[in-house]
């Protein structure tokens, strides 16, 4: 890229200055049928800065970046790179303009080596040897220059998630990216890996690369970015110098109203033990032990939070408790009675009164092509309320879904609308409505607010606490520490499939839990 020599230091400036901005989006407009995803969006990203973009789900961030990366073409508006108007019709053209994208879900070929992955699409001719050695040299240079060392011969599938992300960044840099777009890059990282990523991005910035950082975590915006733009319902509503704004101000701009990040909840009044787990061992699909000798009790009228970095056995624990995954060892006791193997399945557990909000509503909790009313009876579809004879009573099914949607404020109130056509937050409310309205005595709740916008988070949190106050026993698995703190009365931490510590919520803090999540118990004698 032919660009003017950059001045030293942070050039956080709003006036045009000498150098034209790296990216300028002017009046970008994009509709998908009747959905107006981007409305007259203007964005100006100066060279050599880290520019954050925040917004709720569905605010139009991803659409905007997809336009920049050539996945979609805007209906109207102009893109300027370094002051030059350009037309970007494919990711190839985006790359040729020096734009590199790191997707939230990596675009990597796991069985291939790092070198092969970086080379893919840039082989430089029919014979691999020349291209391979050139890329190998380039990787070594980049490694030294930016501290991005990765073994080029390592198999990508065997690398940690953080290193895989590094490979994605290297892919973009090898292709000559001057502008890096990162879409929710920390969603898959441990806190330590996220810190490394931030360090990496700061080095890249110091080398005059421009970085666009998309996230919904305000903490990251505050600690990393120079400037931040806020999107809401397809519009770019505000841009701040990060140093001059605050998380509450950003949150306000995101939702357009005051939000209470912390919900009010009274003291818990735990009763008798509802669920007990002894020495549970659970394997994943490949036969690897993911839960290794876990024991705990869950009492009525309390929320037990299970904290931990994603992938430390929480998912397998939840699935095993719900009867989806077989036990490799240990036992589950409900109301003091061991759960017999014949009852260790989702159907039998629902009959006993164990509700389950799965971690992944798309893959597990709902059937996307079904009408909402059909998704709203999944797991309870055998019940006679939906029809006493051989045939279903459609009116009863629709009325039942209507009641649930009313109770949980699912919008739109359209039981006949396809499940896939609801927003993430409303889909999640539909799952919660289905499970909670059956009044289970034990609730297994996984990632209740993943991919849900702030307004719905508040609603969902209140309903979960209301369940506790009604004397239910709730197990909450979440990778969001904020959520664990907001809801839990008691917290256990999983690391490597073992419980590394147990705390009362009022008796711990993020630092303490962070250490436990890394497997270190400071308080242990």
């Amino acid at each position: 890229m032919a660009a003017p020599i950059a001045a030293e230091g942070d050039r956080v400036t709003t006036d045009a200055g000498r150098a034209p901005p790296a990216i300028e989006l002017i009046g970008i407009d994009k509709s998908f049928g009747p959905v107006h995803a981007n409305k007259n969006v203007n964005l100006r990203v100066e060279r050599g800065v880290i520019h954050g973009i925040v917004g709720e789900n569905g605010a139009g961030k991803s659409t905007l970046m997809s336009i920049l990366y050539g996945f979609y073409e805007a209906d109207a508006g102009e893109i300027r790179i370094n002051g030059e108007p350009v037309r970007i019709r494919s990711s190839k053209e985006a790359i040729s303009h020096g734009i590199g994208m790191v997707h939230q879900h990596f675009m990597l070929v796991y069985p291939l080596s790092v070198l092969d992955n970086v080379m893919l699409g840039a082989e430089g001719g029919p014979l691999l040897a020349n291209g391979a050695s050139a890329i190998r040299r380039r990787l070594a240079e980049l490694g030294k220059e930016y501290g991005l060392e990765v073994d080029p011969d390592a198999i990508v599938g065997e690398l940690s998630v953080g290193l895989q992300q590094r490979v994605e960044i290297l892919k973009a840099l090898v292709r000559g990216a001057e502008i890096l777009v990162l879409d929710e890059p920390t969603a898959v990282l441990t806190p330590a890996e996220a810190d490394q990523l931030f360090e990496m991005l700061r080095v890249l910035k110091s080398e005059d690369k421009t970085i666009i950082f998309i996230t919904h975590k305000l903490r990251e915006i505050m600690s990393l970015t120079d400037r931040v733009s806020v999107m809401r319902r397809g519009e770019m509503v505000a841009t701040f110098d990060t140093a001059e704004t605050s998380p509450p101000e950003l949150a306000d701009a995101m939702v357009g109203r005051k939000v209470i990040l912390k919900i009010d909840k009274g003291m818990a009044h735990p009763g008798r033990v509802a669920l007990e787990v002894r020495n549970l061992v659970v394997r994943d699909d490949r036969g690897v032990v993911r839960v290794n000798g876990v024991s705990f009790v869950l009492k009525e009228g309390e929320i037990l939070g299970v904290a931990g970095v994603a992938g430390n056995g929480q998912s397998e624990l939840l699935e095993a408790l719900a009867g989806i995954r077989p036990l490799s060892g240990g036992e589950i006791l409900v109301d003091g009675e061991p759960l017999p193997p014949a009852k260790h399945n989702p159907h039998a557990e629902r009959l006993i009164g164990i509700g389950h909000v799965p971690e992944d509503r798309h893959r597990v909790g709902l059937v996307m092509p079904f009408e909402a009313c059909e998704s709203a009876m999944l797991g309870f579809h055998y019940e006679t309320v939906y029809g006493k004879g051989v045939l279903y009573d459609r009116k009863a099914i629709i009325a039942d879904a209507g009641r649930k949607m009313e109770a949980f404020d699912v919008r739109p109130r359209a039981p006949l609308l396809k499940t896939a056509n609801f927003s993430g937050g409303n889909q999640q409310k539909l799952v919660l409505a289905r499970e909670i309205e059956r009044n289970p005595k034990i609730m297994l709740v996984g990632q209740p607010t993943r991919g849900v916008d702030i307004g719905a988070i508040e609603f969902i949190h209140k309903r979960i606490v209301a369940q506790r106050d009604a004397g239910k026993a709730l197990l909450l698995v979440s990778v969001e520490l904020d959520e664990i703190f907001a809801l839990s009365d008691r917290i256990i931490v999983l690391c490597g499939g073992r419980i590394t510590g147990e705390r009362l919520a009022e008796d711990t803090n993020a630092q303490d839990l962070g250490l436990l999540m890394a497997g270190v118990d400071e308080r242990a004698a």
Partner: protein
Amino acid sequence: MSSPLKPLPAWADVALIPLINVAAAFVISGFVVLAIGENPLEAVQILITGALGDLEGIGFTLYYATSFIFTGLAVAICFHAGLFNIGVEGQAYLAGLGAALAALYLGFLPGYSLVVVAIAAAALFGAAFAAIPGYLQAKRDSHIVITTIMFNYIASALMGYLLVDVLRVPGQMNAETPGFSKYAAVPQFHELLAPLGIQWPVTPFNLSFLLALAAALAVWLLIWRTRLGYEIRTVGANATAAIYGGISPAGITIITTLLSGALAGGLAVNVILGQEHRLILEFTGGFGFVGIAVALMGRAHPVGIILAAILFGVLYQGGDELAFDKPKISRDMIVVIQGLVVLFAGALEHMFRRPVAVLLARRTTQPPI
């Protein structure tokens, strides 16, 4: 990456898109006719007159359509569970064996109860032959597409052996069983209407047609109005969600293939009990495979399947007339059209979806959901 267009309205999804797909198949068929050196419009005229021009044509058309409704339903019910049963041909062939064995060896049954038992036997044998691939898919993960293709050959070889070496009347040269008693025959319409003074020309059109319509209604009720149908659709749409919902995908897979095989038996009922009145070699004549085209074109919905089956009935009957009138256009033309329908309604099902969606999106002023 394709942009998330607003989904098509229901009417476009169930009527407009299939119509466009079929129209495309016919337009291309027209070019093929043109290339042969015949006038496509004239060909269409002969085809339609031959199929629907008189009661005899209509009788044959509906006779063929009856077979297609059964095989189309058999394929469609598996579609709903996410299964692709290519073995309808073989299942129907074995169903014919069931019907024949009942008709030949249960002659002691009183009156027309014999034909009822023979129909049940056809369904039972069809289901039993489908059960093996179903079980292998459910419990052993052997892909049902592969196993059912292979089972068609097994059916063909087995029936050839039985008809030549076991069931053939000694001294007979034809590989076929003896004729059935009249109580093992599904009555044909011209026989039924004669006593009422209505003259219907002699055609193989028989009461199996009503059975096929009843089966279509039953499949519709099953899929959209019963618990089993809900479970079938859930397994087909999202097997992980099904497990979460306490549904066993393996169990549903087996039950669905059993039902599919039983429906395939309808082809044997129509042809063997309704027309031939004896078991003959290769009586399925590829109708099981046409069921795939019918199910695709009918979008796995019973109403669509009935319409598609009638269209294929028209093609088969009219195609015979066409081959007779225009020697240049052989009966293979029907196979060409059939292939094009599978291509457009199946493989290229979504080709016209996007243009239509774009067109409709421009026209509608509905607010976003």
